[in-house]
């Protein structure tokens, strides 16, 4: 059972981490609460489904392609719908909600409310200490961890990463230092959504696709980001694993209450916030007046 808890916790945690870090990034850099974030995650999953079932593409090609496609699409959406109204916080908020609805409805029209699936890239399973774990789960875990590592390199070791981090720290000063804040925001949007796309690609063979699959990860992602501290990459990372392990533990330890996993994880988040209102690693933002 321990092995299961660890494996499942690590996979879910890595997926949540990919989602939450992306979300955190765009929030930190541009102060955009992007509700459509997980809708893009879902969109990437559907792209892969289309590539596999209709175009006969190998998943190894369709996966990177769809990640790029959602990244590009998000930049276009950002340019058209979000950039013009960026000063109006509330308007941006519902613009992203409406965007998510558009994606959901478009998928519903195109594919109906059917449950769809993509077969695993590798089939079979390994038995570790008497517990069966599918190869696909291992693959998902390694891809997710690789992606996380890639993001870490991008943020910490490249010039672009430096730009992103500095803008996240203080937008105005970054702007004064001659950085094109608008462009940084746009690029961040693309990067963050591509991370969501990777998460989508990873889960495609594991999960069942339907046009409402973005809701649960959205809620968990928001909870993680708040738990870890808004805008804090480290916080999102740690928070993701905390929430994932909380969920998995509930499933394993109280099988009769497996449906309560979301509620329990969210309650943990609220408890943490009671003690630390700015989250685990949150920087108390200066009062933004």
């Amino acid at each position, binding site marked *: 059972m321990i092995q299961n808890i660890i494996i499942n916790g690590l996979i879910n945690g890595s997926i949540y981490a990919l989602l939450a870090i992306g979300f955190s990034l765009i929030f930190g850099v541009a102060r955009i609460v992007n509700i459509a974030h997980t809708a893009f995650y879902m969109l990437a999953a559907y792209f892969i489904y289309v590539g596999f079932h209709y175009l006969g593409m190998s998943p190894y090609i369709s996966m990177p392609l769809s990640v790029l496609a959602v990244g590009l699409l998000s930049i276009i959406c950002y340019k058209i719908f979000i950039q013009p109204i960026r000063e109006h916080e509330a308007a941006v908020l519902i613009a992203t909600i409406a965007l998510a609805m558009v994606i959901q409805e478009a998928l519903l029209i195109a594919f109906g409310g059917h449950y769809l699936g993509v077969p695993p890239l590798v089939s079979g399973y390994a038995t570790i200490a008497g517990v*069966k774990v*599918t190869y696909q789960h291992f693959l998902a875990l390694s891809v997710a961890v690789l992606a996380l590592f890639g993001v870490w390199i991008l943020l910490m070791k490249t010039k672009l990463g430096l730009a992103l981090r500095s803008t996240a720290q203080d937008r105005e000063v970054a702007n004064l230092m001659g950085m094109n804040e608008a462009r940084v925001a746009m690029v961040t949007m693309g990067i963050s959504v591509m991370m969501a796309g990777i998460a989508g690609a990873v889960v495609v063979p594991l999960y069942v696709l339907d046009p409402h699959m973005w809701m649960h990860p959205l809620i968990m992602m928001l909870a993680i980001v708040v738990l870890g501290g808004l805008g804090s990459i480290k916080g999102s990372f740690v928070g993701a694993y905390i929430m994932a392990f909380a969920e998995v533990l509930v499933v394993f330890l109280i099988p009769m209450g*497996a449906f309560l996993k979301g509620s329990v994880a969210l309650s943990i988040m609220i408890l943490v916030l009671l003690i630390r209102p700015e989250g685990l690693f949150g920087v108390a933002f200066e009062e933004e007046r």
Partner: protein
Amino acid sequence: MKKSIFGWSVLMAVCFVMTIGSLAWGADDIKIGVIGPMQFTQGEGHWNGATLAAEEINKKGGIQVGNTWLPIKLVKVDSNEFLSVPDATNAMELAISRHKVNFLIGGFRTEAVLVMQDIAMDNKKIFIGCGAAHPKLCSRVKENYDRYKYWFRVTPINSRYLVKVDFILLGMVAKIMAMELKIPKIKVAIVAEKAVWCDPIVGIAQKNLPKMGMEVVGVWRPSPVATDVTAELSAIQSSGAHIIFTSFSSSVGITFAKQWGELQVPAAAVGINVEAQKDGFWAATGGKGNYTLTINTYARVRITDVTIAFFDKYSKRFKGAPNYTAGTYEAVYVLADAIEKADSLDPDKIVKAMEKTKRLGTAGTLVFDKTHDVTWGPGFVTAVGTQWQNGANKCVWPLNWQNITYEGAVPYVIPPWVVAHYKK
């Protein structure tokens, strides 16, 4: 600024008037509203089944009332009931007061159907349920006959009977496994999604299985929309269960079957898995759902003389097997017969005629009981058990049950990895 609101409301009012205008109806047809979640499989089933029946009847000239023949006109009403319950009830009201439908068929989500039923009853419209299995819908007929007599249920069978069939199937598989694999005492793991409709099943199973000579090794209740049940599956495997008794109506059914097949858990899956009734199940599980056994309404076997013809016609026309909401096909026929017998469009007279229905239908002989519910039993509607066998959903029950065998049924197959695990 408030002028805008007024302007808008005027505009809206105009729009509404235009909608009425465009929907003006001729008195020389019978309007049947087909209400369901039209963007989902369930709603598609509602609409397709009804379309087929209406076309067949219209080809014969329609329904005879007095000396005139009235064609059937179907009105598609999207209830959107999965996403919004008020939406569903508004759609119902729209169908009745705006589209002026004479009759209604369909409905799926019980929370919504309970409200839709009330609206139909308020307007004294006959509403034939084709989707929600909850007993309360029909017990209302007994409690307040004068108000709820306009409600009938054609499909599926009442959840009490679903449970009965559920246990018959479980018993059958247990017997086969005990015999073929020489297992002295069958151990059963109960897996039911966390939903109210499963609660009685879990309760009865815990009480009855020991009486049936089986042992319950545990109960798991995943969320209906869980995306990963490997945790549950590992626990089931270590519990040593031979049979997994499932109750799924939602996407978790696919997740479960997929991971059950992938991990080759050495226990046969039997029970209710609504997703496994659908054609898309094979593709959605990537073939991993092979050997899943579920209760079903339709199968390509000779339940009655008309079943196979209907099944083929439906599959050809709509590129897929009918699922249980396609029972709207029966509903339209029952309604048409009753109208002709009553020789009137007066709902009270039609209700009287419908109560006397005895129709050799596609899912069995359809007779309504006192609560206007579909009667279950040998010689009536029995439901079937279907098992996925290498890409086809085959009927495996009834097979020599109470002297009933549906022609075309095949024996149940124990998943090979289960056989390999226990046959030493």
